């Protein structure tokens, strides 16, 4: 059948084919222009590479909250030799950040003093609804005399915060302790509004800021880095002994972008130069070089437009992967010219006709391999698949449509290269025929033993954290700043759900003792919960009832004992009675100046369009936290941030009573979830590879006899097994990226086998083409193995090994076909 198509295609006039090719190119160029004008862009967000995890809507909302709130934060520590310098340097630094225009950061702060003021102000009217654990205990055990005594002692302390105004409204000084209990203990000191950490004779002041846009957005990233650099320069100019260290996703993102950009240029250029050198070496003529470049350019145009058409954006990492397209698209060109070199009498059109079946089958398998790679749930990987597949189609079309007209010019008549290729093949033939049965058996046994050993020692590791390896310096600084902030916040968090606000708040209250226990057992460093700020109505009522013991009949004697004038009693009692129906409510607190910063932790339902929900939504809109309309939920949820997790399994076990049986608490661990998915898809991809090999065997047996088909497939299969064995021997743990690369090894490697199988007897041209293909592919992918991005490195290394083995094995097909014509 394929012969008929070849005949049919070759019947079309070369000029007409060329016209068709030009038309396609022009329309593509216009499509590209149109897409670009309508917002297509280059994406550098590393997160866009990660697979999407299917979560329930509330969890999805919680995840995007945590990401949007935490991902854009940066933490700066200014290390000085004394307090004064640390404080003034931090002030100078913050000034400089604030003065940047247009602003790159907001929320620039160290210790926020207004926040404390705001909290005090917000809660004071509700003071009768608040009691600390200790106060609750004292009141319920009727320890009023002790409480009065400690009030008296506080009053005698000249440096106590107690003062006349407070005493008249809170005679037992209960309120200050409540505000204190709301905020966890802290290792940091505050000096003039600046957070300080003192250690080993150094003083570090800490400054925090929030990027106005995502750190992964290229423009925002640039603006933020520029603003920071400026602030660092200004500060270190004035305080020359200051050392500044930084932490935050921004610096990881910037490093990743920088690496990707460098690699695109270095890998791209080296790969291109290598290919040009290869073409020059082989054909010693300017025309093949120009034609090869034309093929690559067309391929790249197809790849770019194809990707933009499907995704409306192209990822920077896609371009890094995409540089390898150079190595594959050039294959068609090589194949064509090698044929020309061997059969110089044929016209270009006839050469195309001659190689049409092999090229078409090769395109089919490569495109299939790429597309199956795109089945993985990685948006980035899917892009790579579309990019490479459309690039190959572009190169293929160029060969079929444009070569007959453009590549007519004859090649220099030297056949030196072909002679070399023939010599190599002869050597292989002699080598394989020269082997005695005994030698063959021994080498097979050695190979088998090696493979078994390697495959048995093959491990796998799907933890995605190993894929995010930032430069050591960035990680070190990050850890340093983290330790100054005593742990910081981890990726994992708790999501607590409730059917309504009060149910949710009560669930939160039942969670608190568990968290305290986890912290005291050392499983956990810290937890940020909204619970201390929002006691449930139930707890507020209990606290209110207990304070009856103070503001009831005993008030007069209490006031007398403290030494206060009895005349303030009626006002106090009135205030107490009036407070009965006033409750601390989430909506009120989270919109207050003191609670605003905690509002991202609160997830109100989005489904019911009640007035209350509307209010929440306007509130959310105001705080730039527009809920995602698609993720509608009718449950209330709140996020509990966890920091300094030392023992996640133990923590999970401890919380199990609240988690299991669809309990109100859920541990959200996106990293683990993604890693899990990676593992699943790794297995799926390997299974897919096995199926593809079997399928290919059947497809090929339609064109060739079954035994040859089996041998054709055996080449990539053995290459895959050897690659896996080597990975096992060197102890490199298998990841999804290895599996994806193996799919490509199959897709590309099977081409080589096919070319040899098609060539039958006269295979010097094929040998040369395959040699050049393998060289260019190894050039492209071998270079990827030197990438600093672990995923790309893994991918490149696997292909390097796999294609290497395929290249070594595939000429033996010719040995077989020649031996048995």
């Amino acid at each position, binding site marked *: 059948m394929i012969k008929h198509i070849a005949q049919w295609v070759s019947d079309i006039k070369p000029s007409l084919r060329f016209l068709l090719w030009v038309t396609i190119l022009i329309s593509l160029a216009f499509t590209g222009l149109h897409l670009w004008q309508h917002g297509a862009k280059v994406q550098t967000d590393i997160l866009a590479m990660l697979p999407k995890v299917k979560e329930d809507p509330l969890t999805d909302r919680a995840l995007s909250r945590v990401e949007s*709130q935490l991902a854009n*934060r940066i933490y700066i520590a200014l290390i000085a030799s004394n307090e004064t310098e640390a404080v003034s340097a931090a002030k100078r630094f913050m000034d400089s950040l604030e003065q940047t225009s247009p602003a790159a950061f907001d929320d620039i*702060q*160290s*210790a*926020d*003093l207004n*926040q*404390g*003021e705001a909290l*005090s*102000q917000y809660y*004071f009217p509700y003071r009768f609804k608040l009691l600390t654990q200790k106060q609750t205990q004292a009141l319920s055990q009727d320890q009023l005399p*002790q409480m009065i*005594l400690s009030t*008296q*002692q506080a*009053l*005698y302390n*000249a*440096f106590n*915060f*107690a*003062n*006349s*105004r*407070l*005493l*008249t409204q809170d005679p037992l000084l209960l309120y200050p302790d409540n*505000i*204190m209990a709301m*905020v*966890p*203990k*802290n*290792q*940091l*000191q*505050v*000096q*003039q509004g600046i*957070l300080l950490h*003192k250690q080993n004779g150094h003083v570090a002041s*800490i400054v*925090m800021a929030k990027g106005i846009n995502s750190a992964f957005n290229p423009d925002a990233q640039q603006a933020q880095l520029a603003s920071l650099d400026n602030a660092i320069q200004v500060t270190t100019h004035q305080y020359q002994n200051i050392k500044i260290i930084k*932490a*935050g996703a921004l610096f990881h993102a910037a490093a990743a972008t920088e690496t990707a950009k460098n690699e695109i240029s270095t890998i791209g250029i080296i790969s291109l130069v290598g290919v040009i050198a290869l073409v020059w070496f082989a054909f010693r003529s300017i025309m093949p070089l120009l034609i090869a470049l034309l093929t690559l350019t067309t391929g790249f145009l197809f790849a770019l437009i194809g990707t933009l058409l499907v995704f409306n954006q192209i990822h920077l990492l896609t371009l890094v992967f995409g540089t390898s397209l150079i190595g594959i698209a050039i294959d068609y060109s090589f194949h064509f010219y090698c044929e020309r070199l061997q059969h110089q009498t044929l016209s270009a059109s006839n050469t195309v006709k001659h190689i049409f079946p092999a090229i078409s089958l090769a395109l089919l398998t490569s495109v299939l391999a790429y597309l199956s790679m795109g089945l993985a749930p990685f948006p980035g990987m899917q892009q790579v698949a579309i990019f490479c597949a459309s690039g190959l189609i572009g190169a293929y079309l160029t060969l079929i449509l444009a070569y007959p007209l453009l590549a007519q010019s004859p090649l220099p008549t030297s056949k030196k290269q072909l002679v070399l290729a023939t010599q190599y093949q002869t050597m292989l033939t002699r080598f394989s025929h020269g082997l005695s049965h005994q030698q063959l058996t021994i080498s097979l046994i050695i190979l088998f033993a090696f493979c078994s050993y390697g495959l048995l020692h093959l491990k796998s590791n799907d933890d995605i954290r190993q894929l995010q390896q930032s430069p050591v310096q960035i990680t070190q600084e990050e850890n340093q700043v*983290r330790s100054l*902030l005593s742990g*910081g*916040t981890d990726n994992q968090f708790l999501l607590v759900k409730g059917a309504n606000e009060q149910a949710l708040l009560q669930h939160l209250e039942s969670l608190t003792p568990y968290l305290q226990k986890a912290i005291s057992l050392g499983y956990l460093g*810290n937890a*940020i919960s909204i619970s201390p700020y929002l006691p449930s109505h139930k707890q507020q009522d209990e606290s209110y009832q207990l304070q009856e013991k103070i503001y009831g009949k005993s008030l007069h004697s209490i006031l007398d004992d*403290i*030494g*206060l004038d009895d005349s*303030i009693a009626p006002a106090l009692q009135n205030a107490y009675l009036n407070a009965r129906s006033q409750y601390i409510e989430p909506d009120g607190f989270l919109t207050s100046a003191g609670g605003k*910063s*905690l509002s991202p932790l609160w997830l109100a339902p989005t489904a019911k369009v009640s007035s209350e929900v509307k209010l929440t939504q306007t509130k959310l809109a105001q705080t730039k936290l527009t809920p995602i309309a698609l993720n509608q939920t009718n449950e209330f949820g709140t996020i509990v941030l966890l*920091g300094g997790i030392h023992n996640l399994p133990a923590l999970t076990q401890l919380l199990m009573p609240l988690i299991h049986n669809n309990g109100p608490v859920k541990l959200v661990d996106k990293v683990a979830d993604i890693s899990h998915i990676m593992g699943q898809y790794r297995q799926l991809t390997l299974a897919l590879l096995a199926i593809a090999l079997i399928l290919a065997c059947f497809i090929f047996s339609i064109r060739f006899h079954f035994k040859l088909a089996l041998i054709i497939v055996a080449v990539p299969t053995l290459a895959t097994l050897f690659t896996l064995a080597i990975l096992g021997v060197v102890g490199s743990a298998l990841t999804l990226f290895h599996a994806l690369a193996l799919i490509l090894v199959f897709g590309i490697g099977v081409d080589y086998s096919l070319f040899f199988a098609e060539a039958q007897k006269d295979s010097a041209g094929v040998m040369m083409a395959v040699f050049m293909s393998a060289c260019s592919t190894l050039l492209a992918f071998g270079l990827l193995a030197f990438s600093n991005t672990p995923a790309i490195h893994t991918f490149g290394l696997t292909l390097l090994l796999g294609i290497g083995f395929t290249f070594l094995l595939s000429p033996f097909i010719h040995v077989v076909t020649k031996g048995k014509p």
Partner: protein
Amino acid sequence: MKKNALTRVCYFLILLILPLQVIAQTHDDSVFSHPATEAQLKKLTTQLHLGPSALGDFTQYRQLKVLKKPLISHGNFLFDQAQGLIWQQLRPFKSSLILKDKQLIQIDSQGNIQVQQAGKIPAASTLETIMPNLLTAMLTGDISQLKQNFSLSFQQQNKQWQLGLLPKDPIVKKILPKMIIEGQQTVTALVLLSPNGDSSRIELSHIQNRPLTAEELKGFNPSTTDKLQPN
């Protein structure tokens, strides 16, 4: 990463909820209009230097507007440059405050002991460390330490001088906006002025400059066997 370090910081800004009253100042605070010169401070430093250890008595008059009568307390203090400071109130009830090795130990009238590591002291308790630090600075004449945390002013009439301290830390500033140290040959009193008209005056007397006895030094190591309440 911690989203919000401010939630970890403790605040006591109770005063701020209440409208600040404008009260006719009963104390003379004219000292604050005379910024201290280097020369004045240098002179004061040499004058105040008491030597490695000192001890004396104190009387504190605390005037809270809403209380029927002023709170008057008496006690003594011990200072040793190597050990630290003991501030012991004897009447109307016993309580002590010990500052040593960056630890702040508080013992109440029932013998409850509270220990705070200086590094772990929450931000707001800066307030609690002011007094021992202030006293240490006063007794050793370590004016440079005061200059780190306060803007200083100085006034002298005959032998009587006043050193005005305005806190740089905003939290402290809001609670104790003005402090005055008074003295002649040595420090005689410390005056604290609150924004709402409350005030305290701590008078020091019988200051002696001699090495502490073994018995006196024992006070720096209170028995921590009972009622220890680490904070």
